[in-house]
C-alpha cells in the first residue's frame, strides 16, 4: 500500500493502483468528475494508464450548486 493525499486527506491505495482503480474503489464510475494529480489535469482517457505514486496530491471534483 502507498499513501496519497486525496481531497486534502491521507488515503491508502494499492502500490500498483491506477486512477481507474481509485475511481472504481470510490464508486465514481459513470459519474461526472474531473481529476487533478499534483495540480495537473489527468484526462479521463488516461486514467487507466496513470499510476499513482506515494505522496501524490489527488483532487477529485464535481459540479455542485453555485452562482
Amino acid at each position, binding site marked *: 500500500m502507498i499513501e496519497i493525499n*486525496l481531497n486534502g*486527506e491521507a488515503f491508502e491505495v494499492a502500490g500498483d493502483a491506477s486512477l481507474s482503480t481509485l475511481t472504481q474503489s470510490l464508486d465514481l464510475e459513470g459519474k461526472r468528475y*474531473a*481529476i487533478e494529480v499534483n495540480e495537473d489535469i489527468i484526462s479521463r482517457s488516461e486514467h487507466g494508464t496513470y499510476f499513482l505514486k506515494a505522496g501524490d496530491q489527488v*483532487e477529485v*471534483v*464535481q*459540479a455542485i*450548486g453555485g*452562482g
Partner: protein
Amino acid sequence: MTQEIHAESPLVIAGKSYQSRLLVGTGKYKDLDETKLAIEASGAEIVTVAVRRTNIGQNPDEPNLLDVISPEKYTILPNTAGCYTAKDAVRTCRLARELLDGHDLVKLEVLGDQKTLYPDVTETLSAAETLIKDGFKVMVYTTDDPLVAKRLEDMGCVAVMPLGAPIGSGLGIRNPYNIKMILENAKVPILVDAGVGTASDATIAMELGCEGVLMNTAIAAARDPILMAKAMRLAVECGRDAYLAGRMPRKLYASASSPIEGLIV
C-alpha cells in the same frame, strides 16, 4: 443605436444564441428538486454551477447536480466562486473543462475579500489573460468600473458582467450610471451579475440596456423560489421590451394625456 436592435434578437454569447436573457445560479436551494423546478420556471438556458471536491465516501446513489441540470439541455456555466487568486481561478476552470468534456465557456470571478465578495480586479485581469490564451471563452464578473470593463472586453472576454451590488446582498442596481457608461462603450454583451434582490431590480438592469442578468440568491432565497423564478423571467422580458420600445423623456411638469380641444367648459 435603438433602431438597430430588433425585438426578437436573441442574446448571443460566444457565437451561440439564447432566447432567454436570464441566467441563473444553482446554489442555496433546499434540494435538487427545488433547484430543478426553479430553473425550469426561470426559463434560463445558461445555468451556473460551482466546482468542488467530491465528498469521498458519500452515498454513491446521491443524485448529482448535473443529473438534474443536464448539460444536454442547458449551457452549463462553471464558475470560479471561492477563488481569491488568479492561479486558483485558472485551476478551477481547467478542472471544469475536463469535468464538462471540453466545454470551454466559464464564469470567471476572482474575489477580493470574504466580507464584500468584491471582485479583485488585478487578479481577475491576470486570470482572464491566462484563460483566454488557453482557449477559454470567458464571461467575467467584475466591478462596475467602466475602464476595467472595457479592458476586459479588449482582452477578449466574451461577456463582461459588472455587479449591481455585492453578491447575495439583494441591494439592487446601486450605480445605474456606471452600468450605463459601461454599456455605451461595449461591443460584447454586458450582463448585470450579482445584487438583484427582486423583480424590479432585474427590470431596471434590462431597461438600462443590459444584454442579460445573472442571479442566484434573489430566486433561491425568496420565500417561494419557484414563483420568484417566474417573476424574474417576466421581469427580464419586461425590461428588455421597455428598453427596445424606448422610454418617453422625463419632464418636470405635467403634460395632459387628453386633448385640450373640444372641452365642454
